[in-house]
């Protein structure tokens, strides 16, 4: 498949950057004032590149995905920073511009297809609505494009399925239908938030392969948001690890997995049960993620880190370059040798 041809590092450095998230911060309004749930998040997505965004619950990966498309609840949340796409800053763009981008140039898919599909409309109606809101085409033309999209995501009998309702499809087929709606306008970027998490393992493998194929065929970049490092490892070129609202590591996939530079990435890898590890005791990460309201001044991971030194707790830690196109937010990134997975 494509990964071996393209190399695990993905598209070359000369490939254009499609989407650039710069210094993104997200605040939630609470009774006690504002709470910061994402801090100074920066990463790039290049054409055809698949980037995995990994982290545990509450690390800020979902709000990062939502804020790219301006989908944070208005009034309850506020985003600062820049999301550069197609010469515009999406965070500053008016709703009118975002509506032209959403579903056309950048699409998003979610974990639960039933919450993204409208149960009272046919799959076809939901496809043609998406097409006709972005292109001035006839109903007939929209229908043909919709059926082609169902065919492209591997739904058997697309001409028949087009006229069916979401409840008439199985779980795996609903996930495919949601992907068809998200990709029917051939977007440049797809944001997949835990899109394979609730699926059975054999169906999950099918959906991962489908997303890889769509990305390879159309040069579509994918931001894979997942807590499952295995899924990201199967699908992505680059791994961005988030912890407590910050990017703590950003590196080519195999570099990050085999030789992680941040103790949190290494901790996630050590926690994973695998059949290769056998019955060995798993290494868990002690302690808990600090609450956004009570973030430490220094390294946010220090209180759980077995490599922490007194200096780590003193001042905030910046991202340092650890290799070609690789960054880690660790004062000791250059001196530590952390265990990853076998090469």
């Amino acid at each position, binding site marked *: 498949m494509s990964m071996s041809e393209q190399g695990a590092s993905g598209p070359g450095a000369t490939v254009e950057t499609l989407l650039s998230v710069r210094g993104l911060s997200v605040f939630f309004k609470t009774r006690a004032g504002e709470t910061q749930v994402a801090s100074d998040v920066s990463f790039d997505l290049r054409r055809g590149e698949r980037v995995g965004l990994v982290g545990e619950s509450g690390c800020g990966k979902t709000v990062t995905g939502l804020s790219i498309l301006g989908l944070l609840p208005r009034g309850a949340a506020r985003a600062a920073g820049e999301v550069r796409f197609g010469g515009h800053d999406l965070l500053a763009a008016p709703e009118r511009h975002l509506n032209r981008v959403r579903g056309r140039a950048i699409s998003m898919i979610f974990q639960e297809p039933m919450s993204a599909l409208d149960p009272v409309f046919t799959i076809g109606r939901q496809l043609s609505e998406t097409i006709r809101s972005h292109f001035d085409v006839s109903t007939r033309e929209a229908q043909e494009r919709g059926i082609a999209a169902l065919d492209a995501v591997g739904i058997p009998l697309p001409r028949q399925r087009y006229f069916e309702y979401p409840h008439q499809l199985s779980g795996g087929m609903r996930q495919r239908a949601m992907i068809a709606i998200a990709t029917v306008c051939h977007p440049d970027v797809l944001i997949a938030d835990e899109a394979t998490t609730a699926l059975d393992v054999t169906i999950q493998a*099918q959906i991962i392969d489908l997303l890889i194929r769509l990305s390879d065929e159309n040069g579509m970049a994918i931001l894979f948001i997942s*807590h499952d490092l*295995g899924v990201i490892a199967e699908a992505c070129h680059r791994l961005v690890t988030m912890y407590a609202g910050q990017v703590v590591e950003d590196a080519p996939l195999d570099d990050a997995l085999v030789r992680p530079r941040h103790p949190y990435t290494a901790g996630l890898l050590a926690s994973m049960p695998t059949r290769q590890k056998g019955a060995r005791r798993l290494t*868990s990460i002690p302690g808990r993620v600090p609450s956004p309201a009570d973030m430490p001044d220094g390294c946010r991971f220090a209180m759980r880190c077995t490599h922490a030194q007194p200096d780590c707790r003193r001042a905030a830690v910046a991202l340092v370059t650890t290799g070609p196109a690789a960054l880690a937010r660790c004062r000791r990134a250059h001196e530590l040798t952390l265990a990853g997975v076998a090469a």
Partner: protein
Amino acid sequence: MNERVIAMPRPPEGERTRLASAQDLQVHFPRRSGPPLRAVDGVSFDVVAGETFGIIGESGSGKSTLARALVCLQPITGGALTLSGRSPASLSAASLRLLRRDFQIIFQDPRAALNPRMTVRALVAEPLEIQSIGTRDGRRAAVLDLLDRVGLGPEFADRYPHQLSGGQRQRVNIARALAVRPKLLVCDEVVAALDVSIQADMLNLFKDLQDELGLTYVFITHDLAVVAHVSDRIAVMYLGVFMELGSKAQITERPLHPYTRALLDAAPQAVPSYRRVHREPLQGEIPSPLAPPSGCRFRTRCPLAVEVCAASVPAWREVQPGHFVACHRAGEAMVSTDGTDLRSQGVRSAAR
């Protein structure tokens, strides 16, 4: 149906106690019209004291129904279930209550299993009260001891479920299950909803409790990495029946059933050289349990299916000591597409 009962999986080592034993166990749910839903349709196995018996299957495989049947939460409709040498169906209500102490279950959603209006102290004391174990003072002390065992300090005793994290809630559920000193604990997807680091903590806790208390586990999950990590023996379930049963090494390194192979191949892998990029995923989806395919139930998705697979139900046979499989083509399945005989090499080679 009868040919499946011929071979009975034996305990792996000699004369260890059989805690639970299922023989051609069936759980059918009647429907208003049409044939019954055969959620569990004839499975046979023993669980021996001290082991961890893993059951892996996709949604709709019947694994949760089997879990409930094992702790008498779900009456069986055919075959036989023996718990500690006794048949629960033949017992009086009082004797059944006593027997059920020894066989406890924990579910996936720790929140759903806890009454939100009860404190942790009351929740953990409840099973002791129901079973009339100990005095009031004795129970107070027992609760703190149980919380300590599952890694929760005494400060948690007066909290309510909503004040706990997902991992802490699951620990309270474990404490509740352990309160009546069970011999066997059925764990149904107990780590599925947890973050990977919390999941690691829980898996370590299960191991520690087993070492300290001599517990026996039936560990039910859809996650192959988890089941391979915790289990001594593994059964692979599909549409209400077992496809394969064997030791952990037999199932994960030398699988004989094409479905087991497919599950191993489909599991996402972080280790670069084990990734499934060169493997074709299994096609199609699990058929409806209301209308399972004739013959072998896996045949509609099986890359090796031939005519005989539709015509007759494959026998449940012991291919090697302790290694059972129901497949007409078991063994042939071990030759990979490039002609390499994998029988001696294990499945990892198949990925290369």
